[in-house]
Structure formats: structure tokens, C-alpha cells
């Protein structure tokens, strides 16, 4: 009976509709799951984007465009409108106004919080479309969408409240690629234009657009090398490049980079190459003659080499900007550490160890190569794309942790391909019946000949199918088990690793209960309530956005590290002695200094551990005044205890971190739990700063910068008088004496 009921739904037209509906509902479920799995905890971060969005919503688009932010990078200020990727803010602003237009009263904050999960649903959908372009099997797309929806590698940057460019960028990345494949397949200018449009959107949203800018030309180049030039290729690429470049140049921050900087030169070069080849093809179509074509080849080669040489010449002569450091450091991996410490100092710019890969994409990581291999079966243009993408992305993600983000989509796609292929093979009711020997031989032989030589080795023999139900059952059940395990893994990772915002630390008590350490917000609240609204806060740049956002106070430097010198100035102030740093702080009108100190709690991400970066960055600007060498002992150790170097002990950062720290311990037991060393019983002495606030677990320490002494003494003298020891009568002054002059 059941058959008779189900029957009509699975046949003919209705059947297609049913499948369509099923697919749609599955997709919706996947999107829902993707969104739901990102709602573990909600804390808005980074705050700057939220601030910018609020400004956009409050003052409108054009004011945002020309926004000059005088609450950061004091006293330089920041031309924010021209130095950020507006895509994120504009998107949420648009959504906000749309909802308002639909008379749905909504707070911009909620939009910002929920933007990333929402877009993750879209990403799943885009992945579905992309994968469908790759394989004929309908299940591949759904699987890929499911993977993309819950893969921790992507969740890490798109949990609710993580309001960063990546939140929308990944969707745009995948969707642009989908459109590119579409355009390439159809050779249609319209799809190419759409691709360019979304490429423009991507450019407006994330600096990672350079990945697309280089991947697509690379793909085209590989295709050309494989001798796959075709009008489709020509049309789609030229449309994409011309329109896309124009679109990208509309973003003030990008401006003329697409024609001036080396990152974009590959795209330009391939564009020129295509023109050449197009021309050659056209001529050949006109005049078919063997010699002529060879001649043309030579001509093409010549022109190509000349153009390339010209490009190089321009680069050397500086008309075309050389690689920007960030990009260059991807190739020469040692480069950043020497030349641009700022970039090297960022934690997410570190290389990736293998556990990170496994952590972020559990079993996908080993399904991934299989999927890529599968692409070699029928090496059509789009499969070539997958291969190129896979290799490039795995390289990048190996070099930089944050680029794991660009790897995740292709991994999901590849894994889905192979998995769907497996399921299609093992999940069919029909089994082939055991063949008779001779026949099989004959067929095999015939098949062997039929298959041409350059096919994959695994494809030599003809497809037969799976005979026994047992093997089907075993394989399928095993796969299901793995998939379930994968789901468990994703949930666990998401709930444990990626849902703990940076400002709130969770620690386990001895009894296993979770203990929330909320020092950051405590300190920012203190700043908000106890300092005047224009009090300038000096801290290392990692905390700039948070101070600007949560405490709403002007900062000297922040996470947008556009001005190396200014950061180096802060680094110098932190790493020099009080006598040097006090004038710097006065000059920059600093009112409070904020340091992060993990010594009491064993919180390893504190400023003393980051200190060497400050020193290096400062040394890059003032090699004579700050020397990294001086912070290492004779035996080359970086010590903070009694054996620390004098420079270290006199540096402002050291003093601020350990000021009064010894008072927390009984004599002789003062120790630093991060560095795991015993501290001297006599703490450092601060003359130019007053301790203003220290958070519950001593993670945040805030100091107030003293004013000049009212009666004109230097701070050392004033402080010692405050401590109650009288000044010595100046007996016989030594050296040549000095007369008082007016």
C-alpha cells in the first residue's frame, strides 16, 4: 500500500516537483541549522564596526563616506570613511532601513549581532549552487551546503555578534565563484556582469578580495595553458575583469590600486593575454595557413614577453606599487617578521599547525584530497577551478591561520563531491548480477580499449556496481557514523572554542564549575564612569577598538593599524624609562595608560608577553633609542624576575605591570603565574604615574598620568618628598658652579 501512496510523487513531473520541494525544504533546514548553531553566546565584537554602523545609520551615507573620526589615533584622527571597507556597514544599514520601511521597528544593534549567522545561511545556499555546478549528483550540493553550514572553520568567524568583514565576505566569495563558473559555462556576458557586480560588493566588504582577483585569472591562465581557450572564456573573463575592476575602483579605500599595485597585475596580464589570443584566433579563423599560425604564435609570444617585461620594468621603476607587505608576506614567509613586525605580531597571522586544520574541518580534511582527485575524472573547466582553488587555498591557509576561512568552502565542496559519489554508489537498491566469466572478460577488454590512455588509472576498467547488500550496508553505516561524529564535533567545537568572546574569559574552577572572568568589561565600565569623556587612553593597539567602543574614550592607536609610526611611538613610550616616556605622553595629551597583566591569573595573552613586539616596532623607527637586545640578558633570555635587565626593569610597561604586585603575596612568595617565575620582593617605583584602577583579577591595570609638579620639581623629587623623606641640604656642589640668570 505504501508504494501505491508514495508512487505518484516519485514519478514524472510531479516527481520532479516533489524532489524540488524536498531540496528546498532541506536547504531551508540547513540554513536554519547554520543560523541556530551560531547562537551559543552573543557579544558584539569588534566594536569599531558597530560604531561605524551606528554612525552610518545616524548620519547617512554621505557623511559616513566623509567621516573623520576624532576619537581614535589621537591626535592625528583617522579619515575613517576613506580607510575602511564599507560593505559590512552599508549592508546592515540597508537592512535596517529596509526593515524600517517595512515598519518593523528594530534596533541596529540586533541587526549587527545577527548579520553573521544570517549570512551564513546564505553562504550555505551559495555553496549548494556552486557545488551543483561541479557535479551532476543532486545530493552533492545539499551535502556541501550542510558542511558549509556547520563547519567550525567558518563558524569561527561568523558566530552571532562577531560583526567583522568576514561575516559577509565569505558568502560573497562563494557566490562570486558560483557566478564565475556560471558565466564561464554559459559564456554569457550577463552572468559575467553579475559576477563583476558581486565581485565589486566583495571588494567593498573585505580586503580578502585579492584572493578572487588572483584566483580567477589563475584559473583562466591554467585553462589557456591546457589549450582550452574559447569564446566563452573570452567573453566571461573580459566582462568580469573590465566591469569588476571599474566596480572595485569605486571604493575609496581601494581607489586606483587595481591598476597600480602588483597584487592586481596578474588579472591585468591575463586580460592582455586573452586579447592577444583572441586576436590570433580571429585571424586564424580568417586565414588558415600553417606557417602563418606558427608566425602568429611567435608574434604572440613576443608581445607577451614584451608586455611582461614592461610590467616588470614599471614595477621596478615604482610606477606600479610593489607587493603590499601583507600580501608579500604570504609568499616570502620570513618577510613580515623582519620588515613589518606589526603584521607578524597579529596572532591570526601566524602559520597553521595541523591540529588547527583538523579542529576546524574534522573529517572533511581527509575527504578533501579524495574530492580533488574526483575532479580529475572529468576535467571540465569548473573542475579545473576546484583543483586550482584547492591548491592555492590550502597553501594560504597553511601560511596564515585566518586564511583557513578561504579554504573552508572548497574543502566542503570537495568533500561533498566525494561523499555524494560514495553514497550514490553504495545507496542504490539495484545490484548488478554476477557476470559470466567470458562475457565479463570480453566486455572488460572492449572497455579497456574504449577508454583512452590519458584517463585516470582508477577509471581503466568499466563501472560495474556493488554486488552485495552487506558491503553497501557496512560502507553506508560507517559513513553515517562518521557524519554523526562530524556533527557532534562541530557542535562541541562551536560551543567550546568559538563561542567565547575575547573580552570575557571563562575558566574552570577546581570543582569543575565554570568561572567567568569579566575584568575587561569591568575596566571599560570604570573608564566610562570615572573619566571625563575626552580623556585620552594610551594602550597597546590590540585594545583600541574595545576601549573606543565599550569605554567610549579616545585612544592613541587601535586595531586598524594604518599608521606604523604612531604605533611605534606608543611602543617607545611603553618600552622606555619614565624620563623618556613622560614627555611623550604629555605631548600626546595622554590622561590614562591601560595595561593588561596576566601574572596573577596566569592569563598568557598579556602585555608582557606582547612586549617584545612593542620593542621591535619601536626599534624599527628609533633604532638608536630602543634596542631589542637590551631586553635580553647576557645569556639571551627574556626574563622578568630579579634577573631581568635594567632596561627591562626601568621600562614603563614592566613598572606598570608589576607595580605593587608584591603586596599581593607574603614576603618571598611573590610570583608571576604566566612566566612562572618568582618575582623580587621589592616592586618597581612609579614616579610619573598614579595607579588609578586595577581590576578584580589584576588583568587590567589603569594608571593616571600625573600633571607637572605644581612648584616645579621633577617627579622623582616630588614623589620622594611625598614619601616623606626630606631633601638633603646641598653641601659643596661639585663641578663648575652655575650662576642664576634671569
Amino acid at each position: 500500500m505504501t508504494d501505491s501512496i508514495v508512487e505518484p510523487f516519485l514519478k514524472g513531473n510531479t516527481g520532479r516537483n516533489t524532489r524540488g520541494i524536498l531540496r528546498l525544504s532541506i536547504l531551508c533546514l540547513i540554513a536554519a541549522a547554520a543560523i541556530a548553531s551560531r547562537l551559543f553566546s552573543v557579544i558584539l565584537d569588534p566594536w569599531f564596526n558597530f560604531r561605524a554602523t551606528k554612525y552610518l545609520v545616524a548620519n547617512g551615507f554621505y557623511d559616513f563616506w566623509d567621516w573623520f573620526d576624532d576619537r581614535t589615533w589621537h591626535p592625528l584622527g583617522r579619515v575613517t570613511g576613506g580607510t575602511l571597507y564599507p560593505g559590512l556597514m552599508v549592508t546592515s544599514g540597508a537592512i535596517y532601513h529596509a526593515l524600517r520601511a517595512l515598519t518593523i521597528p528594530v534596533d541596529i544593534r540586533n541587526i549587527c549581532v545577527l548579520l553573521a549567522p544570517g549570512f551564513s545561511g546564505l553562504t550555505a545556499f551559495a555553496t549548494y549552487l556552486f557545488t551543483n555546478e561541479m557535479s551532476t549528483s543532486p545530493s552533492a550540493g545539499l551535502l556541501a551546503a550542510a558542511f558549509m553550514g556547520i563547519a567550525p572553520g567558518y563558524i569561527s568567524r561568523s558566530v552571532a555578534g562577531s560583526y567583522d568583514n568576514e561575516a559577509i565576505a565569505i558568502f560573497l566569495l562563494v557566490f562570486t565563484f558560483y557566478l564565475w563558473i556560471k558565466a564561464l559555462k554559459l559564456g554569457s556576458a550577463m552572468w559575467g556582469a553579475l559576477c563583476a557586480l558581486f565581485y565589486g560588493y566583495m571588494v567593498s566588504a573585505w580586503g580578502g578580495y585579492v584572493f578572487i582577483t588572483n584566483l580567477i585569472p589563475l584559473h583562466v591562465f591554467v585553462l589557456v595553458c591546457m589549450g582550452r581557450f574559447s569564446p566563452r572564456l573570452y567573453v566571461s573573463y573580459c566582462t568580469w575583469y573590465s566591469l569588476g575592476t571599474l566596480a572595485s575602483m569605486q571604493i575609496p579605500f581601494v581607489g586606483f590600486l587595481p591598476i597600480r599595485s602588483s597584487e592586481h597585475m596578474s588579472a591585468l596580464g591575463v586580460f592582455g593575454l586573452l586579447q592577444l589570443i583572441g586576436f590570433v584566433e580571429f585571424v586564424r579563423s580568417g586565414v588558415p595557413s600553417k606557417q602563418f599560425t606558427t608566425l602568429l604564435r611567435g608574434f604572440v609570444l613576443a608581445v607577451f614577453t614584451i608586455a611582461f617585461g614592461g610590467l616588470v620594468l614599471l614595477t621596478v621603476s615604482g610606477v606600479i606599487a610593489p607587493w603590499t607587505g601583507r600580501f608579500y608576506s604570504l609568499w616570502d614567509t620570513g618577510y613580515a617578521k623582519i620588515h613589518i613586525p606589526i603584521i607578524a605580531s597579529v596572532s591570526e597571522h601566524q602559520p597553521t599547525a595541523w591540529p588547527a586544520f583538523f579542529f576546524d574541518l574534522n573529517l572533511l580534511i581527509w575527504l578533501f584530497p579524495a574530492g580533488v582527485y574526483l575532479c580529475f575524472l572529468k576535467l571540465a573547466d569548473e573542475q579545473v577551478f576546484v583543483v586550482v582553488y584547492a591548491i592555492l587555498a590550502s597553501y594560504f591557509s597553511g601560511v596564515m591561520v585566518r586564511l583557513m576561512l578561504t579554504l573552508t568552502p572548497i574543502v566542503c565542496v570537495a568533500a561533498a563531491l566525494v561523499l555524494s559519489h560514495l553514497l550514490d554508489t553504495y545507496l542504490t537498491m539495484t545490484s548488478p548480477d554476477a557476470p559470466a566469466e567470458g562475457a565479463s572478460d570480453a566486455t572488460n577488454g572492449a572497455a579497456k580499449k574504449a577508454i583512452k590512455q590519458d584517463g585516470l588509472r582508477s577509471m581503466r576498467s568499466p563501472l560495474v556496481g556493488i554486488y552485495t547488500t552487506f558491503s553497501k550496508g557496512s560502507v553506508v553505516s560507517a559513513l553515517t557514523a562518521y557524519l554523526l561524529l562530524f556533527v557532534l564535533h562541530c557542535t562541541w567545537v562551536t560551543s567550546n572554542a568559538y563561542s567565547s568572546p575575547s573580552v570575557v574569559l571563562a575558566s574552570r574552577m577546581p570543582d569543575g564549575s565554570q568561572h567567568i572572568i569579566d575584568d575587561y568589561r569591568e575596566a571599560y565600565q570604570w573608564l566610562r564612569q570615572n573619566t571625563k569623556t575626552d580623556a585620552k587612553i594610551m594602550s597597546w593597539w590590540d585594545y583600541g577598538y574595545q576601549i573606543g567602543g565599550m569605554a567610549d574614550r579616545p585612544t592613541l592607536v587601535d586595531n586598524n593599524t594604518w599608521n606604523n609610526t604612531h604605533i611605534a611611538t606608543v611602543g617607545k613610550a611603553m618600552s622606555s624609562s619614565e624620563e623618556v616616556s613622560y614627555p611623550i605622553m604629555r605631548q600626546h595629551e595622554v590622561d590614562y595608560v591601560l595595561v593588561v597583566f596576566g601574572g596573577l591569573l596566569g592569563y598568557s595573552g598579556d602585555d608582557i608577553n606582547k612586549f617584545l613586539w612593542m620593542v621591535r616596532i619601536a626599534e624599527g623607527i628609533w633604532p638608536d633609542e630602543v634596542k631589542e637586545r637590551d631586553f635580553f640578558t647576557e645569556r639571551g633570555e627574556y626574563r622578568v624576575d630579579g634577573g631581568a635587565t635594567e632596561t627591562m626593569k626601568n621600562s614603563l610597561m614592566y613598572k606598570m605591570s608589576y607595580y605593587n604586585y608584591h603586596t599581593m603575596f607574603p614576603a618571598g612568595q611573590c610570583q608571576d603565574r604566566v612566566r612562572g617565575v618568582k618575582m623580587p620582593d621589592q616592586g618597581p617605583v612609579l614616579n610619573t604615574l598614579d595607579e588609578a584602577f586595577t581590576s578584580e583579577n589584576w588583568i587590567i591595570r589603569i594608571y593616571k598620568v600625573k600633571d607637572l609638579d605644581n612648584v616645579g620639581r621633577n617627579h622623582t623629587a616630588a614623589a620622594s618628598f611625598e614619601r616623606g623623606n626630606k631633601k638633603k641640604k646641598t653641601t659643596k656642589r661639585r663641578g663648575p658652579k652655575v650662576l642664576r640668570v634671569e
Partner: protein
Amino acid sequence: MHFLRGLLLSLLPVAALAAKNAPVDKFTKFQTKQLSSTPLKLDDAIYAQLTSAPRDYSSVILLTAMEDRFGCQLCREFQPEWDLLSKSWIKGDKMAESRLIFGTLDFINGKATFQSLGLQTAPVLLLFQPTTGPHANPEAGPSRFDFNNGAQSAEQVHRWIARQLADRPHPPVVRPINWTRGIAITTTILASITFLTVAWPYLLPILQNRNVWAAISLIAILLFTSGHMFNHIRKVPYVVSDGKGGVSYFAGGFSSQYGLETQIVAAMYGLLSFATISLALKVPRIADPKTQQIAVIVWGGIIFVMYSFLLSVFRIKNGGYPFWLPPFS
């Protein structure tokens, strides 16, 4: 600065001497000398004369010990850079607007100076600012360039000197074009081109062979995804011996690894994906049901075991990771 005092004391008589019997400008004398040969070879006397006040010029002096018996590796490494620097500076500053004298004092000729400066190590690079004239800053003693992180390139030293001698011309360091290298490169390029043209018909099938490309790309992917770049950048050790004689294959800690470890992981990945490929592609093409059955079981088993082993390895790296598969738990 004690060595400065020593210097001054050791110089006073010479200074007086120089002051008396040097009506002709010291600088022009040295300048003409160094135009012919730079850097100047110094001995105690010339050194003293060169560095005696009043100076209306600045001088950079390398105190070195080139003889083998001193075994000063650094000196020998730095010497060519030093010569290059001084030559290109002098060549670039014919008019001597920077008024800079380059000198080299070898320990053989300059024992007294070394003692008076109380120098134990070589090389030492001293820069003497002028005591008179437009750029005079008398109270600053000779500033000293530290070699504490290895031999320096001519450019680095040039940068240092340029910092010291502000608002004076700094002729850049020009390295002579390395002809031999260029020739070598061109020859290799030509050779490779000819080789290609000759071997093209044989290479072409290899280039067009999918299996080769597939293999290459898979290897690349496995390398990268098993954290090879991390090893490359962080220069991690290949294996580390645990306390008791043996070697520990897996580094404890989430963000640290050994060379061998990554290779093991890569092998596991490779095996897993190979098994998957076989399941997906090979097995359905096996005509004989029995062999197919066995193949399915074998490959499926391999995947299962390998995966569980992978999980267990991961549990080593990341304590508190709850999931595992039998048999490795």
C-alpha cells in the same frame, strides 16, 4: 665611556704634536690618500693623528683582526662588505662634501690603540664626529656600532653611518654587478630552453598526463594541510627525544608540532583519502563479487582504524577532546 677617557689620555701628546706641526689641513691629506686607496690602512700613529682633535671631519674606523691566528670569523666576513662600503662612499662623494674618512686598523699595527681602548673583541666600528666646523659635536665620544647579531651587510652599516652623519650627503652603496652569476643564469636558461625543445615530444605526454597532475596536486594539498608551512616558517625540530632514550613523535600542545609528526599525519590523511577513492572508484569496477566484497571490507576497515587512530592522536594534542572511535580510545 672609560675607554674614551683612555683614548683621550693616549692621544694628548699626539694631539699636541699634530696641533704643532700640521699647518696643512689634515683632512685634505687623508682625503687625497683615501682617494687613491680606501679604506686607509692605519697604524697607531696615523690612527692617533686621524682621531686627534681638533677635527673638522668625521672618520669611521674599523678595528679588526684579520690574521688567522686570532680566528676572528666575523672580521673576515665583514671585511669585503667594509671595503665595498668605503669604496662606493668615496666614489660617490668625490668632492668630499660629507668629509668622512674611512680607516681600517688591524690589531697587528694597532696593539697600543687596542689596549688604550681596552678592546677585548674585534671587529669594532668607531665613528668620530668632528670637533670643529659646522657639524661639530665635541662632547660626544666616538659612537660604536655593535656587531652583536652577526656580520652586517654594507647597507646596514651605511644606514647606521647615515643616521650618525645627519644633513650630509650619504652616497649609496653600489654593489658591482655579479657578471659570473648573470652569465650562469643566462646559460642555464638557454640550456633549459634547448633541452625543452629537444625533449618536448617526450615531455608532452608527461605534461598532459592527468595522473601526474593529480598526484602532484594531491601531494601538495596533503603537504599544506598537514602543517608543512608551519614547520617551514617556525623551523620546528624533526623529532625530539623524550627523557628516556626514545623519541617523542607528537609534540604536546595544540599549536606546536614536529617535522616527523606532520609527515605521519600527512600519511594518515593520504591513506584515508586513498581508501575513500578506492571505495568510490575502484571497488565498483571490480568485476568479481568476492574480491569486491573483500576490497570493500578491507578498505572500509582501513578507513575505520585509521580514522580512530587519527582521533586518538588528536586527543593527544588537544586534551579534553571528548570524541573517539574504537579500537584506539
